[in-house]
């Protein structure tokens, strides 16, 4: 049989259903967000780790010019290397029918029977069957972006010779979970990774009996740094560019950055949701308990003990929180699935399933239940410990006093209505503060959750309009002499051409080293510039190094210090050079030098391996067609296409996230505003009804009542802007990504969006409450004392 207290519970819940539902929804948002982001983070991490394991993902990667197979004996003797594998990697230009832009391909020699490191996963078609054949395997990203199927053919410029290659199969590689030529932008439409029979590839590039790429797996206890040093010594005579670790491997870097961001987003925002949910729950409970003070006293007078009364209210809360938890788990699973699916467009894993670890559910549900229980016990203890005789006496009539404004002598500025509103707020300053804080919290969630758009726009503007304003960027298969500049300038439609040298070096300062590329920029370069975050364009000093702060920190260098530069190509000079300027750049660990100074350092005379062009739009297609035929161009990047594809992929995701966050924040705002309105309505029904009896209209009474809410919204929203900024700063600070700093740029549009969303939520809540004010039953309200 259901006990009477439980019936009371059921009926109280029904009576409070509006409030119960809004609270449960807020709890659901907190739990759903927490579960979704955590499970996505977990799923991503697991998919990556599993893939790495099954593919024997290497620990070290080394590129070199060409080494004979004979030196593998020397490599095998390096202590700490568990396994290594040599291969040939070549960047080439490609062509697909109907594609105007140049396409880049990276051809990699396929190890015999797909063994060892860099093992591929076949998704479609078949492995290359015949030795020496013109068949290739294509990475799935490119194949999908271009709709390639096994049996299709590609035109590839193999060492200057156009060659038709047939797609045998479509594969995944752990090295190209994310594939990009370097910029970090999605590049799948223009960048293909191809695997080819080793013998055929070697023959095409005169690499028989040699290799130019090395993969290494370390023994568990091996020192990464020691192995890198030993490898570099062995490979140096063969044009070694210095071995790099996983942390420098571009796909790994981008996947790991994303995982890191999920981790931060998955902890901070959902924790705020949960905290806000718990907070609302507490406020509502305190008021519920206060409103039921005399009922509680009656129960005690009837002989119910404290424990059963506390338990009764705990149950009330448990039902609400439980509903929120169940809803939250469902929401979290759905969102998590969706986000995981979204990531499959970015990252290609052989197995990528959304999975929620039990602890994530248990932890979030536990936090919600625990916090709610704590709040309940706190709220109710005050009333329960009150001797029943005292609880039975109605609480002393609220003591009003002239509000601060009036005490300051400003009363003649205000109408009686405003005075009532202000006094009401002042009478319960803590409660008003809580409500204001709750409103601010939902604004802050919106601001900090949607400022990404501004940050990305800012980033794109600095990187692609100011630092690299060129329209087409070319990279060459190897550094070329000064004549290349005039050749490029003569290409059809070229308006302006610049050429630069990017020199692979190892920088050394004390015991710290870093493998970097120094960009040589000629005086007056306009299409490739160093941009300081605060000061704009940074002039290149005529002598010495210009280094960005991130790299300087890595090497513990200050302006004026001298660093060792070991050139990793050509003459391999080793020089000590002064760091003339350290500046604040948005992205990367970059160093710049005057072009002439860099040429002196390289000791090869003027050489260029990158060119930047601005072009006459009318002749663009003609130019692109020409570029495709240039044998010494390994990649031609059309900036606009790249940005376009980036915008279209991110726009969809940003829209989704903005939508979800808006819903969450609006739910929270409604939860706060609606609940505080309902509770004050319950407390003040008598007062409002009396005003109606005195002859005030519904509109006037509503204005009196809702004016209070409006005032709190007006206070909460600006506070939310501040909190949102602080929260965004916290997220930025907690996201540990070495290569860049998320710019903390929040545009007015983001504040406006957050503010308006919360105002809309407030208005919606007010309308619902207004409906109740209009229906106040005057006689009934005045009959009861409460």
């Amino acid at each position, binding site marked *: 049989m259901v006990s009477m207290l439980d019936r009371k519970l059921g*009926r109280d819940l029904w009576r409070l259903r509006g409030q119960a539902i809004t609270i449960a929804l807020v709890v659901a948002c907190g739990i759903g967000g927490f579960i979704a982001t955590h499970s996505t983070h977990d799923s991503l991490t697991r998919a990556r780790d599993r893939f790495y394991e099954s593919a024997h993902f290497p620990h070290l990667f080394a590129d070199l010019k060409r080494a004979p197979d004979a030196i593998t004996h020397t490599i095998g003797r390096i202590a700490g290397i568990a396994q290594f594998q040599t291969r040939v990697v070549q960047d080439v230009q490609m062509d697909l029918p109907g594609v105007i832009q140049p396409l880049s391909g990276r051809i990699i020699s396929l190890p015999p029977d797909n063994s060892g490191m860099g093992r591929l996963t076949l998704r479609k078609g078949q492995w290359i069957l015949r030795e020496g054949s013109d068949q290739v395997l294509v990475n799935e990203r490119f194949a999908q972006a271009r709709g390639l199927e096994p049996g299709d053919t590609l035109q590839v410029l193999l060492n200057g010779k156009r060659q038709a290659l047939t797609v045998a199969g479509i594969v995944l590689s752990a090295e190209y979970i994310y594939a990009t030529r370097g910029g970090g932008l999605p590049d799948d439409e223009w960048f293909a990774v191809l695997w080819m029979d080793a013998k055929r590839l070697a023959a095409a590039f005169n690499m028989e009996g040699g290799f130019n790429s090395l993969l290494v797996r370390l023994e568990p206890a091996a020192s990464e740094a020691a192995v890198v040093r030993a490898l570099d010594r062995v490979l140096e005579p063969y044009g070694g560019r210095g071995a790099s670790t996983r942390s420098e491997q571009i796909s790994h870097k981008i996947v790991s950055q994303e995982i890191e961001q999920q981790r931060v987003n998955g902890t901070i925002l959902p924790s705020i949701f949960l905290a806000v949910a718990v907070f609302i729950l507490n406020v509502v409970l305190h008021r519920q308990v206060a409103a039921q003070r005399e009922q509680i006293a009656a129960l005690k007078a009837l002989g119910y003990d404290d424990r059963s009364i506390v338990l009764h209210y705990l149950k009330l809360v448990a039902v609400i929180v439980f509903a929120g938890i169940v809803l939250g788990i469902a929401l979290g699973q759905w969102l998590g699935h969706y986000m995981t699916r979204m990531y499959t467009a970015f990252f290609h894993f052989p197995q990528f399933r959304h999975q929620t670890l039990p602890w994530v559910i248990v932890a979030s549900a536990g936090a919600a239940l625990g916090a709610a229980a704590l709040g309940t016990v706190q709220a109710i203890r005050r009333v329960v410990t009150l001797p029943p005789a005292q609880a039975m006496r109605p609480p002393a009539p609220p003591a009003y006093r002239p509000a601060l404004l009036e005490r300051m002598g400003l009363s003649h500025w205000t109408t009686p209505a405003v005075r009532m509103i202000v006094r009401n707020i002042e009478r319960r300053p803590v409660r008003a503060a809580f409500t204001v804080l709750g409103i601010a919290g939902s604004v802050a969630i919106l601001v900090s959750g949607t400022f990404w758009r501004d940050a990305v726009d800012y980033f794109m503007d600095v990187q692609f309009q100011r630092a690299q304003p060129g329209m087409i960027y070319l990279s060459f298969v190897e550094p070329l002499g000064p004549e290349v500049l005039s050749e490029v300038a003569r290409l059809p439609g070229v308006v302006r051409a610049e050429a630069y040298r990017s020199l692979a070096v190892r920088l050394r300062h004390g015991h710290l080293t870093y493998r970097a590329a120094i960009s040589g920029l000629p005086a007056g370069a306009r299409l490739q510039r160093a941009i300081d975050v605060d000061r704009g364009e940074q002039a290149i000093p005529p002598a010495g190094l210009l280094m960005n702060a991130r790299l300087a920190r890595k090497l513990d260098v200050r302006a004026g210090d001298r660093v060792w530069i070991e050139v990793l190509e050509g003459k391999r000079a080793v020089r000590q050079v002064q760091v003339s300027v350290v500046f604040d750049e948005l992205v990367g660990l970059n160093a710049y030098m005057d072009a002439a100074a860099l040429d002196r350092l390289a000791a090869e005379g003027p050489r260029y391996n990158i060119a930047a062009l601005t072009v006459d739009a009318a002749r663009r297609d003609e130019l692109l067609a020409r570029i495709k035929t240039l044998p010494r161009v390994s990649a031609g990047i059309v900036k606009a296409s790249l940005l376009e594809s980036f915008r279209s992929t991110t726009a969809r995701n940003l829209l989704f996230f903005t939508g979800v966050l808006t819903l969450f924040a609006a739910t929270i705002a409604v939860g706060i505003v609606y609940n505080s309105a309902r509770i004050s309505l319950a407390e003040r029904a008598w007062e409002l009804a009396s005003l109606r009896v005195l002859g005030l209209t519904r509109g006037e009474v509503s204005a009196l009542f809702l004016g209070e809410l409006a005032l709190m919204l007006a206070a909460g929203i600006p506070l939310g802007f501040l909190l949102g900024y602080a929260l965004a700063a916290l997220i930025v600070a907690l996201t540990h990504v070495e290569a860049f700093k998320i710019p903390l740029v929040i545009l007015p549009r983001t504040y406006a969006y957050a503010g308006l969303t919360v105002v809309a939520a407030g208005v919606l809540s007010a309308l619902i409450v207004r409906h109740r004010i209009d229906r106040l039953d005057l006689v009934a309200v005045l009959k009861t004392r409460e």
Partner: protein
Amino acid sequence: MSAPSRDEAIFVGRKLTKVYRTGEQLVHALRGVDLEIYRGELLVLLGPSGSGKSTLLNILGGLDVPSSGEARWGEHDIGAADEARRTRFRREHVGFVFQFYNLIPSLTARENVALVTEIAARPMPAQEALRRVGLAERMDHFPSQLSGGEQQRVAIARAIAKRPEVLLCDEPTGALDYETGKLVLKVIADVNADLGTTAVVITHNAVIAAMANRVLRLADGLIASIEINAERADIETLRW
């Protein structure tokens, strides 16, 4: 109906005082009250507002504790008992009726009564309790659907359903009109007569006193007088 026996006091109060502290101020609600309450009697407490009636009643019912003095129920000093024992005492022996009924608004009349029968040792069925107060017909109504007098009768039903030894009523008619108040008082008198439940009724209306066995007058925290009614008036004839 057997006349209440002179010698069997179920409550004995000795030198009861109660001091409330509100901020700096001390309020002496009771200044040393000695009293006995006899089994089966109907005792009316009279006195002006603020004279300490509620305080005394609450101490007797174990809702509150005295600042000093003794409040004995049989062998037990309930004034000195802890909260748990006082809760048990209330649950087992006392039925309360308050001026504002203090019904649980979300429970029907029957359920409000069941609230008590559930935790009582040998209760009467909720229906019977409601029948006694003349509300058998309105059992499934919520408090908001009942008039003030009906609500107070539900409160009385709730108080008597556990068959308490004593019924403590604090201004049960204070919020009611004349006719309704009379009906409520009749119900209390009937319970006292039919079930033999000792009843203590607070009022500030002297006319009610006529129906009591004894009338105890409080003034300023002290007992001003005790009158014994040789002949109790019938409730129907009372006028006030």
